[in-house]
């Protein structure tokens, strides 16, 4: 078995030399599919494509699997205390369950070992070229793709290979999104993005301002409450802070019980509000702003501890930032606070730096592709993006079914091209479709999907593919 640093070898039989448009040599990889990234979504794409009989080359810029969940990777956003926010049945791949004896909400190191076992169990490492990054992906005629790669860090020559199809699984939680504030450049304190936050020792004894009430922001605020000398938590609006357990069971499982019974959204919202009111209580009594939206309209925040620490006075909730001064921060309500460290947990933006944005339908170049099922690209039937989702559950099940759909679609193209063409029309018609209820407009919610709605849509697409 190859070790993780040993690149795999392409099958020499299928390699024939062709010439690229600019005369560079291109090795033709025949029907092989290229997968970009060996994180969770990339691994499941490799596994499902191989299972459907395709040859697969996967390029991974790091030297191990697990992508964002491998804390050794320089683009990994995880910090020492990261735990899952969706419980086990929501997070595992549907055909490779996590061990029964694991906790309901596993730690990120367990998740990494899960991906490593997944890769070994299905013998995926032989498809992966580690330490290789993708520089360019260009369409060539006949729906084929030229993929140019080089060693991570830019050493060594570039090489170009031609593939029958490409799966982009490069993740979307690594390119930090930093908001602009007036006077931030003059601010003398320390400023960091949550992506470089690794360990609570970074907060110890400091006066810390945490910006953002996503799940990361809340986690960091909770750690600051225990480590820092003071902690302010700045949020744009009021949010619903859902506990991780309700009625003695993981909260997401209780919620899915209602979904399984097909309880309508309004009733679910009412029940949710009731439950929160009875358990967490009215948050305005702590000075937290009242949420300006109903639940299910923003990405859920699962954090039992935030409210607990607010109640103990360890976290001071504050509104949005107005501007920075050299030694203080002015808030929108006119107050001035003097943090030493500002942590921006303001999220990430997707980036496909190796691909022309127009191909994914991102005409304005803002980084928001226009896809069907958040995966299939109109007019490019042999290109797919997987894992570009913000589900209210774990992402991996969804990425698994995306990969299955794409693998079946590719197989259909080979066996019944006329039916695949009909499906391509469906992709064009459905581009940009949303799979969630109404959500607040924010880059946070670009890829927001309700996992039940989304999986049902995927299921319909799979049926359509089989039946037509």
């Amino acid at each position, binding site marked *: 078995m190859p070790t993780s640093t040993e690149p795999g070898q392409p099958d020499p039989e299928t390699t024939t030399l062709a010439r690229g448009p600019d005369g560079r040599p291109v090795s033709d990889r025949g029907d092989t599919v290229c997968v970009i990234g060996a994180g969770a979504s990339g691994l499941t794409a490799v596994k499902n494509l191989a299972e459907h009989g395709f040859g697969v080359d996967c390029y991974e810029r790091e030297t191990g699997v697990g992508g964002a969940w491998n804390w050794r990777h320089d683009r990994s956003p995880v910090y020492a205390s990261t735990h899952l926010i969706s419980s086990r049945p929501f997070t595992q791949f549907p055909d490779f369950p996590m061990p*029964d004896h694991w906790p309901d909400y596993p730690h990120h190191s367990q998740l990494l070992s899960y991906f490593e076992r997944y890769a*070994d169990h299905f013998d995926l490492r032989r498809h992966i070229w580690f330490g290789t990054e993708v520089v360019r992906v260009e369409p060539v005629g006949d729906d084929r793709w030229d993929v140019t790669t080089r060693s991570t860090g830019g050493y060594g020559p570039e090489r170009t290979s031609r593939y029958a199809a490409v799966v982009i699984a490069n993740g979307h939680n690594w390119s930090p999104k930093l908001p602009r504030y007036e006077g931030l450049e003059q601010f003398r304190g320390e400023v960091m993005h949550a992506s470089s936050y690794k360990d609570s020792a970074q907060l110890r004894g400091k006066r810390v301002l945490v910006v953002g009430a996503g799940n990361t922001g809340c986690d960091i605020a909770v750690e600051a409450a225990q480590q820092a000398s003071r902690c302010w938590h700045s949020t744009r609006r009021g949010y619903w802070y859902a506990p991780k357990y309700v009625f003695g069971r993981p909260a997401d*499982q209780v919620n899915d019980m209602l979904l399984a019974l097909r309880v309508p959204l309004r009733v679910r919202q009412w029940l949710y509000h009731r439950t929160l009111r009875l358990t967490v209580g009215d948050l305005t009594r702590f000075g937290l702003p009242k949420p300006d939206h109903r639940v299910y309209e923003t990405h859920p925040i699962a954090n039992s501890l935030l409210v607990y620490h607010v109640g103990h006075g360890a976290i001071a909730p504050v509104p949005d930032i107005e501007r920075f001064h050299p030694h203080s921060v002015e808030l929108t309500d006119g107050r001035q606070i003097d943090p030493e460290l500002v942590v921006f947990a303001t999220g990430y933006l997707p980036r496909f730096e190796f691909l022309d944005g127009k191909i994914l339908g991102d005409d304005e170049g803002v980084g928001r592709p226009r896809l069907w099922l958040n995966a299939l690209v109109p007019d490019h039937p042999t290109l797919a993006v997987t894992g570009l989702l913000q589900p209210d559950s774990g992402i991996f099940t969804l990425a698994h079914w995306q990969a299955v759909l794409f693998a079946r679609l590719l197989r259909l193209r080979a066996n019944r091209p006329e039916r695949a063409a009909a499906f391509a029309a469906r992709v064009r018609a459905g581009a940009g479709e949303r799979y969630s209820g109404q959500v607040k407009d924010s880059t946070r919610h670009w890829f927001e999907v309700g996992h039940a709605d989304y999986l049902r849509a995927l299921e319909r697409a799979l049926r359509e593919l089989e039946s037509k």
Partner: protein
Amino acid sequence: MRSWEWARPVRPVRREVLSAVPELEEGRPPLLFVPGFGHGAWAYAENWLGHVAARGFSAHAVSLRGHGGSDPAPEATLRAYAHDVVQVAAGLPRRAVLVGHGAGALVVAHAMARYPARAAVLVAPVLGGWATFGTAVRRNPLGTLPAVFGAGLRLNRKQLFSGELPDADARRHAARLGRAARRAQWQLLTGADPEPAVGEPPVLVLGSPDDRVVPASALTQAARRYGSAPLLFPGMGHDMMLDARWREPIDAILDWLVKDPSRDDRG
């Protein structure tokens, strides 16, 4: 979408897994044996596990919940049993071959929809349905009929073993039989058909025409469902892994695996 898998995951239990590993790892797929109702992992440990390991495959046998050395589970369903199998299979270092015997074959068929097995082997499969029930009632009315009302399904020695097995051994094995959960037994008759298998695993069906639990017609039907014909071993009882000539079927299974059936359909 499997809503209930999300909302009501199967309750975890402690499971007994007996293993026999070859001295030298040869990169062959591991085998996971699933016993039928009433049986535990012990049924395989008796003869087959050691033999499989001697031929260079690592062999594991799980006791479904409520059986053998696993935790009791009186309310278990087929879904919980399939969960047990998938859990153990996913815990093995490589993609496993699932081998199910009797009603364990039905459990394997369900598990195959949840786990892309490398291959599957159904030994004297009881895939449920009324024909099997009819046979069982005719052969052993006293053991079968009470099961309809929730009592344990009892199989007698004549059903399980051929005459060649020494009586003392037959008695010893029969004394170790337990029972499956009430709801799982009913699901043999009324349960839904297994969902289609994921990952297109090749499937081998084998049994005996002289089996007094599974009629030969049921074997043919089971094999046809997976697009093949059954491999027959005349003169053996239902419990092929305990019977006197236990060596023949397991050798046939291993020979089939050595040929690597998964290569055929990949071209």
